[in-house]
């Protein structure tokens, strides 16, 4: 018998998707529910928490967007996007029923299933909660296999807390959530300060039995990692999701390199110990 590996895939192949719903989240951010037009693709597609898709708006370009959830009933994949450049502006203008193309999934995943029995600490900043959400959902779904599950979340202001309406349901399912904002508003009764402080304050913490998964601005993740190291976690227990200019998504175009890594295919999720030296070099 000859068990040959499947042939490599064509990275430029896209699939047609339809915008089945658009959920406004915070100012300038919306979640797009995208469903494959072709039922066969719908049945075949799957991805794991932390991976991303390339969303393609013909004539405008592509954007790399992490999958932020899966609507099982509607068979739609959720993509939470901040409207910024040409692609995201055009996406925002499509509306429900709009058509675009998608290729993916690409990249590495959050290692939530690799640490049975561990406590998991998710640390998110701003819209960085979106790529973490599927991992949070997975952890809550498999709570019996895991220890304590915590989400530490930092936003600029009370009005920019992403997925806030979901927090109560998450708490009911056993997630410990601690939220802080950089600037408070009148009426905000929660914490004020950077999310790193929540790592400092985290109790209880069993460093030897904890993994920390973080996503947010790069500078935030650096400080979060430092705080976690100070709390006794080792660099191998920390995972970060990095962002660079991802264009081809498979390591062919060179744009997203950071040190030895192609963020698109070696990441976006990395063990912190692998990338720490490169995160601390200016302009790399």
């Amino acid at each position, binding site marked *: 018998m000859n068990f040959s590996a499947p042939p490599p895939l064509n990275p430029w192949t896209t699939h047609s998707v339809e915008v089945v719903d658009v959920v406004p989240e915070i100012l300038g951010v919306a979640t797009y529910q995208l469903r494959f037009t072709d039922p066969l693709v719908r049945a075949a597609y799957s991805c794991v928490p932390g991976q991303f898709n390339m969303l393609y708006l013909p*004539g*405008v370009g592509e954007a790399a967007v992490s999958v932020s959830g899966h609507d099982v009933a509607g068979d739609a994949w959720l993509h939470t996007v901040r409207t910024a450049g*040409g692609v995201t*502006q*055009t996406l925002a203008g499509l509306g429900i029923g709009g058509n675009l193309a998608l290729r993916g999934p690409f990249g590495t995943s959050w290692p939530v299933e690799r640490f049975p029995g561990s406590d998991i600490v998710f640390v998110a900043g701003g819209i960085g909660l979106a790529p973490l959400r599927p991992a949070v959902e997975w952890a809550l779904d498999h709570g019996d296999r895991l220890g304590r599950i915590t989400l530490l979340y930092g936003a600029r202001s009370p009005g920019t807390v992403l997925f806030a309406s979901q927090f109560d349901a998450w708490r009911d399912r056993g997630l410990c959530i601690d939220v802080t904002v950089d600037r408070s508003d009148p009426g905000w009764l929660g914490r004020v300060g950077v999310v790193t402080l929540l790592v400092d304050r985290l109790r209880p913490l069993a460093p030897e039995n904890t993994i920390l998964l973080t996503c947010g601005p790069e500078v935030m993740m650096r400080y979060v990692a430092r705080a976690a190291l100070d709390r006794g976690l080792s660099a191998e227990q920390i995972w970060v999701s990095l962002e660079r200019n991802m264009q081809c998504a498979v390591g062919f175009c060179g744009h997203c390199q950071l040190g030895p890594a192609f963020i698109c295919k070696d990441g976006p999720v990395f063990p912190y110990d692998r990338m720490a030296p490169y995160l601390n070099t200016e302009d790399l």
Partner: protein
Amino acid sequence: MTKRPSVAVFKFASCDGCQLTLLDCEDELLALGEKLDIPYFLEATDRREPGPYDVALVEGSITTPHDARRILEVRQQTKFLVTIGACATAGGIQALRNWADHADVLNAVYASPQYIASLATSTAIADHVPVDFELRGCPIDKRQLLEVVRALIAGRRPKTPSHSVCLDCKRRGTVCVVVARGVPCLGPVTQSGCGAICPAYDRGCYGCFGPSVQPNLISLTTQFQRQGTARPDLVRGLRLFNAYAPEFRRECDRLDPATEEPR
């Protein structure tokens, strides 16, 4: 059908070559007429409708007190102002007067200079009013102009490349004239746009599209001097259509300390 964007075309001190590029879009011209409302474009039509305009394409530099006032009016009537060509973006070839005595120039050119009201300098539009997008070149490139038009129709910001001419030479397989012939060439410090025409005909780049991003003029001119190009020749090479673009201006002045301080 959404409203067609209105595009007005204005001319200041210039040769009209960039406006002609618009008319040179032969294959696309009919479609352009359908996609765009063109209320003001004297080179092409008698229609002269007042603003406000969605977009103004502005050709030419500011050389007279009258034009210095007129560009303010254009700006006031325009949502998105695009300068087209080296005159509008850098002052053009006529900015050579910025290194000369204005009265001498007037007397040399005009029989009755007393009737002439002009400024001592030729300056870029951006020196007078805020500019939303610059389309470089002497003249501008048709493909880049069409990119601007497509962006306007789609309601997005235009995108034109900022890399050096060298990359275009390499993509089309042109052999480097600096290395293979010792010909001075501004390609390494000039922004892409023309498609790298001159080196394909064994000549150095004249810098028609102006300085590239973060250009290293000193290194390049030092190398050319080492290869035998005289300083005055380098100064002349830089004092062309984009002479008054800040990076070129600084370098030709550095190479030519004898010149008067430019105004």
